[in-house]
């Protein structure tokens, strides 16, 4: 995972605001032919550029990308243009030399040059991206606040001796953590205290605490005895987390890679059932991982829709496929009021089918980070 708070974002000088009020828009037309994808004009002034792309008759060519001259970064692209279709993307491009890349054409690379003075760049001056980042900070703060409140309700049920209520509140509380897990994981020891489980990374059973200790007591040991102090410590750790995230700063790249990490997490440890091994409430936290990723997508979408519409389209399609796959296991009120069946009821071949959809979703999400850099 890209460290969320480390300020090590890769700076790509070319990419800036898709739509600034002070920026003049230039139109560049690209026609895909079997031979080439030469832009017209091939040299423009720095600023907002609208790339209009049309596939005239190129059966073997279906996309065009704007890349840095060393081909290492894709700055904008339009995919899936079969002959007769048109599309495009828009972004602010800084002065420099670039390449229009159209895989499959006889001459795949066409030079593109931007002249003039550099325009304000970077996500902080881009209203779409800046809005996404502040929106994400608000989201994380809210999730942690809800996490604390829900955990306090869980502790109250434990202290009242109401095991059924505690078992219903445990998975509901987990949801708030699982939506923002890549953020919380930045503070490793705090993450272990809150969400550590046996083997990962806790090796000594006596050291287990937090959610999964409570889970073990409620389900494996079938008791509330001893749970109260663990719950109190859990709330304390969550409050520490709340203080840390309230001063944290984010950027678009780490938001995007965090979304991928959430779905990686679902694909790796939720699918096997190892995360909620005592309670079998994996499906609701699985949904929480998906929700946390979808939140990031929704926040970045206004920007990505302009620069990389085909990336957004693929993410949307695969997100729907995951939701569809999960919907098969919804139930009312469901196992322990989770809204889902007990995960132990989901057979290995069904888990494998779910995994395939989740893997595809994660793969689509991973294309965001390089496009919001």
């Amino acid at each position, binding site marked *: *995972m*890209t460290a969320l708070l480390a300020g090590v974002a890769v700076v790509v000088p070319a990419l800036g605001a898709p739509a600034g009020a002070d920026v003049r828009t230039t139109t560049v037309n690209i026609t895909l032919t079997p031979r080439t994808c030469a832009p017209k004009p091939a040299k423009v002034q720095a600023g907002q550029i609208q790339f209009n792309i049309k596939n005239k008759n190129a059966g073997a060519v279906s996309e065009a990308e704007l890349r840095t001259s060393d081909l290492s970064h894709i700055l904008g692209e339009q995919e899936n243009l079969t002959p007769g279709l048109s599309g495009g993307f828009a972004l602010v491009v800084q002065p420099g030399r670039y390449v229009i890349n159209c895989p499959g054409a006889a001459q795949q690379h066409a030079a593109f040059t931007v002249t003039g003075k550099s325009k304000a760049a970077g996500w902080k001056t881009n209203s779409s991206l800046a809005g996404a980042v502040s929106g994400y900070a608000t989201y994380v703060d809210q999730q942690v606040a809800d996490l604390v409140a829900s955990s306090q309700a869980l502790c109250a049920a434990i202290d009242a001796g109401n095991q059924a209520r505690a078992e219903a509140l445990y998975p509901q509380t987990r949801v708030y953590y699982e939506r923002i897990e890549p953020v919380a994981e930045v503070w490793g020891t705090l993450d272990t205290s809150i969400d550590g489980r046996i083997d*990962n*990374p806790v090796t000594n059973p006596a050291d287990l605490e937090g959610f999964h200790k409570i889970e073990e007591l409620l389900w494996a040991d079938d008791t509330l005895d001893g749970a109260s102090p663990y719950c109190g410590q859990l709330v304390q750790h969550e409050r520490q987390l709340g203080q840390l995230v309230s001063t944290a700063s984010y950027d678009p790249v780490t938001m995007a*890679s965090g979304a991928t*990490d959430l779905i990686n997490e679902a*694909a790796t440890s939720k699918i096997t059932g190892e995360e909620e091994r005592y309670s079998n409430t994996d499906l609701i936290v699985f949904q929480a991982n998906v929700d946390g990723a979808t939140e990031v997508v929704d926040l970045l979408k206004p920007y990505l829709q302009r620069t990389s519409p085909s990336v957004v389209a693929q993410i949307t399609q695969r997100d729907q496929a995951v939701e569809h796959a999960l919907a098969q296991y919804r139930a009312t009120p469901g196992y322990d009021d989770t809204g889902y069946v007990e995960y132990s009821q989901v057979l290995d071949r069904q888990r494998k089918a779910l995994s395939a959809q989740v*893997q595809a979703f994660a793969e689509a999400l991973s294309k965001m980070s390089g496009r919001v850099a």
Partner: protein
Amino acid sequence: MGPMSRRQLLGGMGLAGAATALGGTVGGAGPFAAAVAAADSGTASGAGANRTYPFYGEHQAGIVTPAQDRLAFASMNVLDGASRGDLRDLLTDWTSAAERMTRGRLVGDDSDLDDPPLDTGEAIGSPAGGLTVTIGYGPSLFDGRFGLGSKKPALLADLPPLPNENLDPDYVGGDLCIQACSDDPLVAFHAVRNLARLGLGVVDYNWMELGFGKTSSTSSAQATPRNLLGFKDGTRNIKSQQTGLLDDYVWVGDETDQAWMRGGSYLIARRIQIFIENWDRDDLGDQQNVIGRVKVSGAPLTGGGEFTAPNFTKKNGLGQPVIPAGAHIRLASHEENGGTRILRRGYSFTDGIDPVRGTLLGGLFFIAFVKRPEQFVSLQQKLGTSDALNEYIQHIGSGIFAVPPGIRRGQHWGDALFA
């Protein structure tokens, strides 16, 4: 048909160098064309596929031997009812068979048409490819079944629970291990298969792994290979030329409580699953930060070439270390581990598909040779807790084995242990 007896095996042995036929029908030089046994010098004879390494020597071959391309590794358990004598005889049979195979010969050359072939035959015509066969003894071998309790080295014990492991009980431990390495996968497999065949009635398979690509170089003459992460692995491994480091970190010396272990080592095997689909969708910049190296060149993030020493104190413009705090090469470095090093001999593996995740079940079959098991344990306690790579890997199998020293011609594996 019973298992081949020791007498049959030894009776079938010929002298080195003679190309002989199986069943009297196969002619030609076959695997033996260049199989002139080298003196006990530790250096290779022959070149390319015909390369052979001496079986006899101060240390067993297959430890500092330049890492061959392929691996076959078996963990075996002694069967209930097998006796001390059975075990000793088996080790003697294994010695003879392994010595022949490492010369590029078959286990036995002559077969009667009325008998099952002495050798299983799949490697007929295949040069040795630098085959080495290395054996080790697991802690459980010393549990009293064979009167070996007093021979157990004090340092040989099952590994403690380690962070970020989720061990499959089907891939843990073992009374004995066989490590066969060759540039030819068939030759490596053939060695394990034939030793297992000789062991029928005495031992059976506990678990087995095939490694399809080496991930560590053990000689400065070798280029550094890549693991399934796509990164060069083992750039800073101990090399066979570094004899002082080998004495300090690999070879058991006079400090051992068991004379039979002097010149030996401890082999630690870890079957490490890599969640390669997750890794493949991590951005390149982060992949490089996780490892601490540039992916293509292998150079440390602090600059230079592959073999330039990493600068762990160098900071970037934001005041953060250029090689991040959780980078794999930082946490694994001898600089950050009180000077401790280990000799690695890893191989990429795949066992098909993870049955639940549906993703590739593969990764790194990690082998380390150490003078003291604690070298590995302390390193892994650190890595398992803090390594940025943990997000993409999980240890799913484990074994530790005491690797006895090498033997001279005329001696057999087990002679010193059972003395």
